């Protein structure tokens, strides 16, 4: 099966563009991809530090998965729908979520779930795979309305063991929904390696059972991810149905800041994986082509660092939530139970 689903790679870890894709070299696009990945990495490292300093709560880092998230999100159009899991901030930020809101969410504020006006970015799904049927439903609605919007849904390798993954693929197949299933296979579901998660050799092959086209892509190759996601979205828009993308990647660090990966994997592996790093390979490629600009990269990094610092300030200065806020959005019109309980908090009756 691995032979039937070869890993599509446009840029090698050494920074060489595969001859088959030579025509896809676009300096502007690659620089923008790099810029987005660099910004995401700066954000992610700062977020981990913020958690260590106790300024945000438990955080789910993504370092190593930038290409998978950013390559795919850059292929989206404003009218599309994004259904992220809790690790997909690089994707949501690329699609237009605000830095401050992402931080606010991890600081324990539900207000952080809110995307900018006009952007369909869903709150990060915390249960595993349950967001997959929503993406199918939203895509199905686009089709029923005769519109060309598509859904993309992000999930990990562990999610493919859940029933909701299979029900989602099956519904999408039956109803020919314009949805892209985007799996980031980072090798582990917390502590459980893929080899223990499933006997299938690939995740891409699972789409065969649903007669859905699928592709296995180097998830650390931002160009391959972008191009393959774009193809899948174009298919969806043309009414050609869903696609499953397996982006093979690696997360260097812990599942969350509450987790110690040395308990279940040799972390020297993570250091070895650095040779395949999504940022390094683009840098190498730009260097080969004489397009690399060290000062530019430095500037992007510093500017992002300042932006994150400002977002942290905004997050920390965000007005404290009123305790009564928790009652505000349970129903459109609160029931008497909620009104009474809200009143009791206002009167401090407990």
């Amino acid at each position, binding site marked *: 099966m691995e032979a039937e689903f070869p890993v599509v790679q446009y840029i090698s870890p050494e920074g060489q563009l595969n001859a088959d894709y030579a025509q896809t070299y676009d300096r502007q696009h690659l620089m923008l991809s790099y810029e987005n990945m660099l910004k995401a990495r700066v954000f992610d490292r700062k977020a981990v530090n913020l958690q260590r300093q106790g300024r945000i709560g438990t955080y789910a880092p993504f370092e190593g998965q930038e290409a998978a998230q950013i390559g795919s999100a850059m292929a989206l159009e404003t009218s599309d729908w994004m259904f992220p899991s809790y690790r997909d901030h690089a994707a949501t930020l690329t699609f237009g979520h605000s830095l401050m809101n992402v931080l606010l969410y991890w600081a324990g504020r539900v207000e952080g779930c809110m995307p900018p006006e006009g952007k369909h970015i869903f709150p990060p799904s915390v249960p595993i795979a349950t967001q997959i*049927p929503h993406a199918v*439903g939203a895509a199905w609605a686009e089709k029923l309305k005769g519109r060309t919007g598509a859904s993309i849904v992000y999930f990990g390798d562990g999610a493919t063991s859940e029933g909701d993954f299979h029900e989602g693929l099956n*519904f999408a197949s039956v109803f020919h929904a314009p949805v892209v299933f985007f799996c980031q296979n980072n090798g582990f579901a917390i502590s459980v390696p893929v080899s223990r998660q499933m006997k299938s050799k690939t995740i891409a092959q699972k789409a065969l059972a649903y007669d859905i086209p699928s592709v296995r892509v180097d998830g650390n190759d931002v160009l391959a991810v972008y191009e393959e996601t774009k193809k899948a979205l174009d298919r969806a828009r043309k009414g050609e149905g869903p696609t499953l993308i397996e982006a093979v990647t690696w997360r260097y660090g812990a599942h969350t800041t509450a987790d110690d990966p040395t308990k279940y994997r040799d972390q020297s592996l993570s250091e070895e994986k650095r040779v395949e790093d999504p940022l390094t390979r683009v840098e190498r490629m730009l260097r080969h082509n004489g397009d690399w600009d060290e000062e530019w990269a430095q500037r992007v990094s510093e500017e992002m660092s300042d932006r994150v610092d400002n977002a942290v300030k905004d997050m920390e200065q965000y007005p404290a939530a009123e305790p009564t806020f928790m009652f505000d959005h349970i129903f459109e019109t609160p029931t008497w139970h909620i009104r009474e309980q809200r009143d009791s908090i206002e009167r401090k009756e407990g």
Partner: protein
Amino acid sequence: MGMNTLQHQPSETNAKPVGQTEKMTLVQAVTDGLRTMMSEDEQVLVLGEDVGTNGGVFRATDGLINEFGDNRVVDTPLAEAGIIGTSIGLAMNGFKPIAEIQFLGFIYPGFEQIVTHAARIRMRTSGRYTVPMVIRAPYGAGIRAPEIHSDSTEAFFVHLPGLKVVAPSSPYDAKGLLIASIEDPDPVIFLEPMKSYRAGREDVPVEKYTVDIGKANVVKKGEDVTLICWGNMVKPTMEAAQKAEKEKDIQAEVIDLRTLYPLDKDTIVQSVEKTGRVVVVHEGHRTGGVGAEIIGLINDHALFYLRSPIERVTGYDVHVPLFALEDHYLPSIDRVYKGIQNVLAY
């Protein structure tokens, strides 16, 4: 006693429609409610297992596919999480899906979607996205159905914030409450008492009307004791009330709750203030059942009017037995009658 002797009382905010009526069973009233809303609003979709060509295993969606086509009456794969999960996506993107779960006892694979998403999306997006969907499910024992088909686990849903839970007992209420549920901007669990599906016919207006969610119906007025019930339990409760009246001159007030969340506090409290004695009747399991919540509500709002402890006549804390024993599980007229005697003898 037939269903038509249970006189529907319109709630204060809903004038009873005066137009043309038709005699309908409860399940026909459900179909009529679906048809009414599908005709009015193109965003209303029906989806579930066997709801299309087959018209539903209870015929609740009979004929709708011919009228509205298979894009609006959708036979889905056999997958409850998929039905509810995709309905959530449809609802968030402008549709009003009505998901049919074939029996309430089969809803559990889809339970996670209800708990972790349908009930929370309004909160998690501060109102940006909402889930205006209805999940319909036949429930309850007494029709000699196979194992697992007869559950009455409404308490699971009453416990969850963000859901409304409705359980009509009559054809009139079924249509009016279903329309109100479809129009409700929040997710509604619509429990259809399957033993009452074809238990009788009553006049149901042909026009569109609603029965308010959250309004109980006083189906029989009385001074001596308040009997609180819903769904399939209204019939044995009414019969027990009539027996008590005939044999002991006990005037029972019978409240059909119609909505289990939010409860109609005012109707319950006013009745308890008048009678001082209460029997709650439900076929769901006793422990943690909706009856316990009703007793809590009375404790909070009418404790000092009580003249005896509140009696619960309920299903037992056992799995609904296979049908050879289901009549022993279900509250019977005699068990309700005994409950009435207990609170009066205190």
